[in-house]
């Protein structure tokens, strides 16, 4: 049986993480399935397990100085119930799994799993979220886009824990999220889409677009967004084929058990087209 730790403070948790190279255990909704064995057997862990549920410093949502700080161990339900959370993130979380799983699963877990289909990621990408990574001796902060490196791979070091997620509060008058799955509850995304925009007097002052499950990491292309920003919403209609063409070049999904590359690509471009035509108005 592996060693199991249940620290009460972040300091203690970080010391254990450093000394034992223990596997961080947040909500556990993915770990318990991935590491599950036959019925009646405890899940298998080859390294010590570091339970985080008693670490108070990792919980709670704080609103301060134009930004929202979300403790990594906040459950999806807690985030959904909090009034300070940006809408685009709430829309995505409302469609993750089921109420029972949202009561257990954490945002930190969803991020650190770094699944290409992780549903909190596209909203966090469009909100320019940052992650705070703590170790026993230091702390660093980085863009979530730089933190996520590939399927199941992040920049988290062996002695670090994801402490919190920081989201700058910005105003968007268009907030659109769409998840495509096989059914409404408990399905993993075939494709997900997060789009936000700020329109002022018919001018697109800001627009941000991110796709999930169409590439090894969530996809966002600031260089294409730049070309849309500053344009009149009516003039943009004529430019839609050109924009779709640009995204078509970088949307590179795969075939897997959930869907096919062809379906994913077609649907993501259709959703993008809908967003540009029907939502930006």
């Amino acid at each position, binding site marked *: 049986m592996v060693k199991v730790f*249940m620290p009460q403070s972040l300091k203690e948790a970080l010391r254990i993480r450093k000394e034992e190279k223990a596997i961080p255990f947040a909500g556990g909704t993915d770990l*318990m*399935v991935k590491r*599950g064995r036959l*019925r009646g057997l405890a899940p298998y862990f080859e390294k010590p397990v570091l339970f985080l549920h008693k670490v108070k410093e990792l919980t709670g949502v704080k609103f301060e100085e134009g930004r929202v700080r979300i403790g990594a161990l906040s459950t999806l339900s807690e985030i959904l119930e909090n009034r300070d959370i940006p809408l685009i993130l709430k829309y995505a979380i409302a469609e993750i799994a089921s*109420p029972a799983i949202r009561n257990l699963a954490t945002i930190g877990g969803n991020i650190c799993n770094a699944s290409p289909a992780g549903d909190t990621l596209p909203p966090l990408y469009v909100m320019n979220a940052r992650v705070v990574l703590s170790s026993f001796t230091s702390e660093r902060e980085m863009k979530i886009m730089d933190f996520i490196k590939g399927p199941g791979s992040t920049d988290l070091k062996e002695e670090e824990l994801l402490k919190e997620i920081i989201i700058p509060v910005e105003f968007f008058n268009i907030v659109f999220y769409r998840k495509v799955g096989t059914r*409404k509850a*408990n399905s993993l995304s075939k494709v997900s889409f997060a789009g936000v925009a700020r329109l002022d007097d018919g001018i697109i002052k800001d627009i941000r677009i991110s796709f999930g499950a169409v590439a090894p990491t969530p996809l966002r292309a600031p260089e294409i967004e730049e070309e849309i920003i500053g344009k009149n919403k009516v003039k943009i209609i004529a430019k839609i084929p050109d924009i779709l063409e640009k995204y078509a070049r970088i949307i590179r999904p795969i075939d897997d058990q959930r869907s096919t590359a062809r379906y994913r690509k077609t649907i993501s471009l259709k959703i993008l087209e809908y967003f540009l035509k029907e939502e930006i108005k």
Partner: protein
Amino acid sequence: MKIRFVLNHKKVEIDVDPLKRLLDVVREDFDLKGVKERCGEGECGACAVLVNGKLMNSCLIPVAQVDGKEVLTIEGYKNTKKYKIIEEAFLEAGAVQCGFCTPGMVMAIEALLSQNPSPEESDVREALSGNLCRCTGYNMIVDAVLLAALKGKGLW
């Protein structure tokens, strides 16, 4: 590792592998067989229990995670007035066929009604979205919840 928690209103302590699933602990160590296992991966809700009043799948919880918390299973709930209301509503609406999903459904319904005593149909469907039933086609269960909310007015 010694794990202490409150199980169906009683303080319990158990020396157990802290990674053992709560589902297995309640079924094997405490003989509470109303908590069912079907999918074992959080999809079906047959193993649903309340932890500190919140609905959770006990197959996804290592017992260490409920240390210091309150766990309620169908066995701890079945002697309450609220349960009786749900039971009658299930009978009246024909919401039980094989019965395997029923304990998890009932826990999900308690979780809903304790938050929202007069739910709309859409609230009910959302609240039960993590509980699968392969017999009834769900409509009778939804009817039963709406009926229970009506009959149990003031209870929740």
